[in-house]
């Protein structure tokens, strides 16, 4: 809950024009993604989710002909080397560690969103 609020607040405070669709776990996220006409530009993925975990979810995404083009950035507290390697192996667009401090978080997200805003994205 707080994570979503945090993200929304960051987007709001930075006055960025992005729309955020939240999903509490992998299952929900897949449901959201079923609406093919409203696919997101980028996905921010936490690895530690109930039911389908982050890596499983990532695998599903990357095996889908359309969704595999959506840049997926892992946003997590886990600096586990194994997870990091596995994510890059499956295919991610970035791996960002959540810092403790809110200000650090804000600045990291701002830069992240700015970066992806200037990227050309593929719509399939």
């Amino acid at each position, binding site marked *: 809950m707080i994570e979503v609020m945090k993200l929304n607040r960051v987007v709001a405070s930075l006055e960025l024009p992005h729309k955020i669709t939240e999903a509490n776990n992998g299952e929900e996220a897949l449901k959201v993604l079923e609406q093919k006409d409203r696919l997101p530009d980028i996905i921010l993925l936490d690895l*530690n989710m109930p039911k389908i975990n982050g890596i499983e979810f990532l695998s599903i995404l990357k095996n889908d002909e359309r969704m595999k083009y959506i840049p997926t950035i892992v946003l997590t*507290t886990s600096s586990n080397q194994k*997870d990091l390697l596995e994510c890059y192996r499956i295919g991610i667009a970035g791996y960002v560690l*959540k810092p403790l401090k809110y200000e650090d978080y804000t600045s990291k997200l701002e830069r992240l969103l700015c970066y992806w805003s200037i990227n050309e994205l593929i719509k399939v």
Partner: protein
Amino acid sequence: MIKSQVDIMERALARERAARKEAERILENKSLQLYNTSHELKVSNQKLEELLEERTSQLQGVFENIYDAYVIIDLNGNALKMNNAATELFGYDINKETLNVMNLLHKEDVKYAFDSFQQLTEQGFFTDFTTRIVTRNKGVRWVHINASIIFNRRKMPIGAQGVVRDITDAKYTAELMEQQKKELDVIVENSSLGIILIRDKKIVRTNEAIKKLLGYSEKELIKLTIEDISFKEEMEESKKFLMKIEAGKIDEYTVTKRYKKKSGSVVWARTNVSAVRNGQGKVMFLVAHIEDITAERKSSLIIEMINDVAKSILGKMDIYEIAWEIADNIADYLNTDNCTIYLVDQEQKTLEQIATYSEKVDIKKATFTIGVGVAGTVAKTGKAEIIKNTELEERYVARGANLLSKIAVPIISDGEVIGVIDSEHRKRNYYTKEHQSTLESVAGLVAMQFKSAINLRERQLAESKNKELLDELGKSNEELQEYAHIVSHDLKSPLRSINTLVTWIKEDTKGQLDETSVQNFGLIESTLEKMEMLISDVLMYSSVGTKDEEGQMTDVNALLEDLKQILYVPEHISIEILKPMPTVPGDKVKLQQLFQNLISNAVKFNDKKNGRIEIGFHEEQSFYQFMVKDNGIGIKKEYHDKIFKIFQSLNVSKDSTGVGLSIVKKIVDLYGGNVWVESTFGKGTTFYFTLSKG
């Protein structure tokens, strides 16, 4: 005189006259007849005499020329006539001297001679009189005499004639032969070899030994042929040899074959057959010498079997293979199709069936309890047992159909029963003491290897168990690290949320809170930071244990350069690397953690105006010894050991979790090194650690 009387007289006279006349006439006739007869007689006598003379001379010629001695004696025994052979035989020449045959008699034969002579006079002849005589030159000769009485014309005995044959040589030869035959018989009868004389495939003579060996009497034997007491399949070989003998190619041969005893049992014998040929080389007899080698064969079978067992298990280490070889060889030796080898586990108190030689290959592998059943009893007592009749045995546990006798022998090593050899047979009373002692020999022979195979199996079991444990340990270690990551993640997330919320409250209430509250929020934040650090450090500590990839080398110079970038080093503190650092084996991340912890400690705990940190090393034969020296606050002696233990932070500091030095120690341990500290409280601290070169 009375007329009548005269008449009578006259008549009588007249009758007398007539009678005389008649008589004269008859007489005349008779005398004529007599004359004629005597004349005829005379003539025929003359003829006869002539004939006799002729014959006598003929006979004389014959007698004189016959090989045997011919003697004519008078009734007193004086020799009247002797032929040359007689002269030669007796040594007396009657033309020159007199000879009474009584003088020729051998002293010992005198009575016999007189009896025979008596017979001669009574019956007129004797035949086949065999006696000894003494010749003129005192030689003793055996003679054979046929004699008859000579009568004169008046049928009165006037002498005797006899044919005397010298049988000394013949008799000597016969005696010699008899003697030799007796000797031979003694040899033959007392021979330990069975001897059979065969003519035309029939048994014609046997000796005591063969009768004893086969259990037949001589009468029974001579009704049999060799084929009757042999096994068909073994006759082929003998027949081939016999054909060669017939053909004259060989004179003897030797085979090892079985014979059927009268009792039905079998005897193994080495048989030597020799041919006895006549002058033309034709086989007259076959002599077979038969030697009972059943015992020899048995013992050679035993030796062979024991040899086979020894050979077959040589070099084998697998308990099942060894057991199978033992079972196989023993079943063969015992001529049974049932032999089982049990492994005895004295700790579990069980017998495990590990090999079974039987027609049914897939008999279920059974496990018994020690003390149960016959094999179980043997496993318990260590004493071999023979069960003559399994039907009468209470302990017997039937495993196959109709197995009526059983033997079980323990395999003993160091006084402990480690296995049991078990065999069963369809016949009652099958197993003998000899079987038992043979199996015991085998058991003794295999015990050592059996034991080492058991040990090997146990070791392998233990090893695989160890490996399992290790795998499990590795897995649980891995799980533990995963767990550490998950836990740290789960712990960090709420920390972030709290931190975020605090930040928001601070933002949203800017200017509305008093200074104490603002300070307290600051404390919450720094506590959160410390908590975050603690979690990170614990996580790091737990990941130090993970294995590196083999053969990684790390250049310490590059590592320190990186660290200078990462670490926050205040202006007043200088870090000096005394000389170029070596390249050491080890994972870069871990070695960096090692240096990072030591250097950051040196930075953190420096109270001097001009903080100085020196990093150096020297090389030893098998390791490098590094040094991180500072001029900081120093550590009291009593804490020198304590500092390397986890959560033993000496200083209450916002930067210190108390995990850092434990991580250092853990990494140094991982690379087979040592870490220690030298310090003067208030003046500074030097950490030393070594890293192995390989």
